[in-house]
């Protein structure tokens, strides 16, 4: 399989629904926690090492062949906010659709059958990477990068932030994304021996709490 498949999957324009989500940035902007490039970087760093690490580990474990149902339950257990669980499943369903059309595979068909309303997005991401012939590190890269690129893109729209500043934030975080991917792949390997309970369970309480508040807003630009 072609390595460039990674670029197709990681492209922000891959049609899997991500554009409607801010990764918590909309709530953080309203609360005054993101006002410019500097605190956008802080926000993204926090998300990378919590939700990003967990998502990347689950995606890597899915590529390594762990049971999707068990991984989905592990993702649920690591996502306290019902609103975020709902968003992760909606995104998982959308990715399932896009992936089945792009890299048809029996495993993705089976996943769609088992989870008609969507499995957690990182689980689907891992199976998509498998269908595309990619590795655990590739899937972890997609998850970790998306955990920071989602809020950065949203911040450009929400704050009219200079897009070059947002790109600079992502570039400065690149080394940390590499390290999170290494941890995630290592965690996935351990989970394939010791089970899903050893997967990381880092979480950002403010992200979870503000996601609940955000879901109740009557007027918002992003779905999460």
């Amino acid at each position, binding site marked *: 399989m072609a390595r460039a498949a990674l670029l197709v999957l990681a492209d922000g324009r891959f*049609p899997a629904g991500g554009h409607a989500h801010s990764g918590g940035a909309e709530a953080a902007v309203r609360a005054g926690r993101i006002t410019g490039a500097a605190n956008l970087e802080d926000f993204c760093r926090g998300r990378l090492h919590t939700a990003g690490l967990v998502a990347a580990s689950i995606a890597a474990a899915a590529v390594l062949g762990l049971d999707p149902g068990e991984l989905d339950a592990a993702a649920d257990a690591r996502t306290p906010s019902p609103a975020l669980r709902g968003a992760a499943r909606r995104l998982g369903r959308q990715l399932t659709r896009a992936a089945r059309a792009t890299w*048809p595979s029996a495993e993705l068909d089976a996943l*769609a059958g088992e989870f008609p309303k969507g499995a957690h997005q990182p689980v689907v991401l891992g199976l998509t990477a498998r269908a595309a012939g990619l590795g655990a590190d590739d899937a972890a890269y997609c998850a970790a990068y998306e955990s920071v690129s989602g809020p950065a893109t949203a911040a450009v729209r929400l704050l009219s932030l200079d897009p070059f500043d947002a790109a600079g934030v992502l570039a400065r975080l690149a080394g940390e994304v590499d390290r999170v991917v290494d941890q995630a792949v290592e965690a996935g390997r351990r989970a394939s021996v010791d089970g899903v309970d050893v997967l990381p369970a880092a979480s950002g309480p403010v992200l979870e709490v503000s996601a609940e508040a955000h879901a109740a807003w009557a007027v*918002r630009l992003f779905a999460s």
Partner: protein
Amino acid sequence: MHIDHVQHGPAVMSADARRPDGARRALRIGLGGPVGSGKTATVAALCRVLREELSLAVVTNDIYTREDAEFLLREAVLPPERIAAVETGACPHTAIRDDISANLEAVEDLEDEVGPLDLILVESGGDNLTATFSRGLVDAQIFVIDVAGGDDIPRKGGPGVTTADLLVVNKTDLAPYVGSDLARMAADAKAQRAELPVVFQSLRGGTGVADVADWVRGRLAAWTA
């Protein structure tokens, strides 16, 4: 696992004409156009005319509220379970053109939950003159502009005005008050669209709605033929 693996399993992919059980899916018609041109009002009018003869549902794409869905609920044009709202994330044209997955989910869920359906109307969030629907999401599209937005819009063209399967020029009742020249709009639309149809509509006066409904019936007849 290879690229020509045959698709099976539960979900309809996008434009396929058949549901997983082999039944024909509903005809899907998109309504796009600039903010406030009368898309929701046209959807409401179509529902009132067609709901006795067809099994209908509506998907709304609101930019940052649920106002369109709430308007349709308040007006009780359809039972609530037949109206679904999609959140578009600040980019209404992305949700109907570049990344249609959320809208496909909404139409699929409507067919699963209240089906079988003959027709699903998908209203885009108000956008600009370049917004068009993907053929993966809808089978035909209506572009709604209004006379108060300036009578030079048909002349300016753009993908919506030029290529939509039906152009509706709405709010003709306002033409005298805003100084819009309807004859000129008709001539410009003709020049941009050649044989593609145009309807001049006033939802205040009630003109044009029957023509739009007839056009929808024609599309449906072709779809089920």
